[in-house]
């Protein structure tokens, strides 16, 4: 993997210097109060290298990813601006890429986006002018070739470190490695995976990634989510599309007394991180503690990932 950074991203510096990276996640509020983000930033600060700011996740309207990213930067944290293809066409997408970069955003995550059916505006029209792979290609071309999708010159290129998500557990399984290969060919530089609970299946996918040499072309960050309770584990197992929670983990949560379940969830997350660190081709972890931001530090601490390096 090239050690030369293309951007000023701290996440990129850490990854390219061969250090194990940690990213976290921060969901913007359903209102215009910036204090919500500032408070979450207080909980997250120094516990990871960069933090995803979600873009209307699960199709529920929230403060925009760009503005939340700016608030996060004011608090001294590095955001990864998520961008979904659901809500914008290529004109708006490229415009927001320029805007985000101009405001100082240094990382971007390219996603297709959840279907609007899941959100609070199921009657909305979806866009999907581009898909995530075409979006990766668009931002990479803007940055490295200085060209818009339409072919005109970009005057002042957006210096963004380019990421995407991949779900090794979704079907059909056999194209999950080829799909990553397509993202790599399109120009992606780092990948955050869906929450990993089924380590065996993840290992199979990772082996495919390594066999194709993709781990030498893209940094793979394994996704980790702590269960807060057995109820949450069961919900994720049954109600979240593309999520794979093995029976034995459910049982382990179920057999834990209620008041100890949160602790057990964190223990599982820490064990998962430890196993991921042993796996060939893994460059870091992405800790998603949804509405449980205060636990990111504890998980990182227990997994031996703190303090975070200064670069």
């Amino acid at each position: 993997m090239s050690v030369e950074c293309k951007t000023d991203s701290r996440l990129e510096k850490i990854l390219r210097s061969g250090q194990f990276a940690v990213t976290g996640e921060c969901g913007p509020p359903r209102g215009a109060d910036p204090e919500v983000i500032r408070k979450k930033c207080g909980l997250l600060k120094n516990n990871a290298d960069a933090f995803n700011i979600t873009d209307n996740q699960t199709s529920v309207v929230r403060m925009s990813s760009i503005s939340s990213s700016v608030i996060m930067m004011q608090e001294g944290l590095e955001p990864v601006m998520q961008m979904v293809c659901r809500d914008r066409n290529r004109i708006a997408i490229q415009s927001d890429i320029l805007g985000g970069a101009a405001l100082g955003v240094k990382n971007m995550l390219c996603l297709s986006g959840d279907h609007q059916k899941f959100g609070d505006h199921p009657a909305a029209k979806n866009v999907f002018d581009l898909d995530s792979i075409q979006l990766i290609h668009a931002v990479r071309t803007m940055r490295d070739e200085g060209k818009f999708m339409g072919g005109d010159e970009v005057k002042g290129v957006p210096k963004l470190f380019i990421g995407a998500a991949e779900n090794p557990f979704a079907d059909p399984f056999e194209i999950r490695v080829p799909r990553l290969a397509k993202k790599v060919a399109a120009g992606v530089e780092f990948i955050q995976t869906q929450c990993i609970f089924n380590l065996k299946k993840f290992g199979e996918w990772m082996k495919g990634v390594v066999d194709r040499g993709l781990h030498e072309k893209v940094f793979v960050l394994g996704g980790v989510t702590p269960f807060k309770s057995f109820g949450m584990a069961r919900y994720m197992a049954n109600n979240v599309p593309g999520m794979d929670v093995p029976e034995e983990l459910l049982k382990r949560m179920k057999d834990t007394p209620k008041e100890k379940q949160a602790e057990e969830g964190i223990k599982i997350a820490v064990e998962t991180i430890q196993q991921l660190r042993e796996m060939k081709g893994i460059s870091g972890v992405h800790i998603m503690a949804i509405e449980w931001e205060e636990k990111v530090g504890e998980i990182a601490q227990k997994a031996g990932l703190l303090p975070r390096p200064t670069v």
Partner: protein
Amino acid sequence: MVIGERKPFDEIMRMAEGLKKIMVLGCGGCVTVCLTGGHDEVRVLSSQLRMARDKAGNPIEIIEKTIERQCDPEYVDQVESIVPEVDAVFSMACGAGVQFMAEKYTGKPVYPSLNTTFVGGSKKEGYYVERCQTCGECKLYYTGGICPIARCSKSLLNGPCGGSTKGKCEIDPDVDCAWQLIIDRLKSLGMMDRYEDIMPANDWRTNRDGGPRKMIREDFQR
């Protein structure tokens, strides 16, 4: 074919409010095949309307008629003598038929009795599914004959999203994941290498996004 569904009766009743005499006009094309807008359905809707209006003490006179196709001026002309007699025409054709009628009979209100839903076919009698979104640039060569634009809920061109589970789409466990179907088919045809090509951003100009479309056979223009 074009699939249409009958509008809710209440909505049709509302459109007919205040009218004394109407024509309910069926279409012998697609909507006859999908059992929503042909001769038989004209009869059903007309009797429903008559009954409801009789019950309300406000009877309505209805002329029932079905022509070969409403999307063709030659057939639309055939009702020329009836149209002046009625207050409005209730077309049971797809949206194209309704508009051909309205274009011809400019002085007469023409109302839709169907909701035009999609381009598709029948799996079995009375069971219709969407297959094409008329994007104007067919991609089925690359996708094993299964359309990602019409059948993937997000119209993704480069493979399934992360929500595909056990062959089903994230939006509904009854909806097949188009990309699962595409992959299965490419595999069985020994064409999996086609999946690895990146499909570039689509040119939507041939789609409705480029404005209303037309197709002209120059050799037929005189």
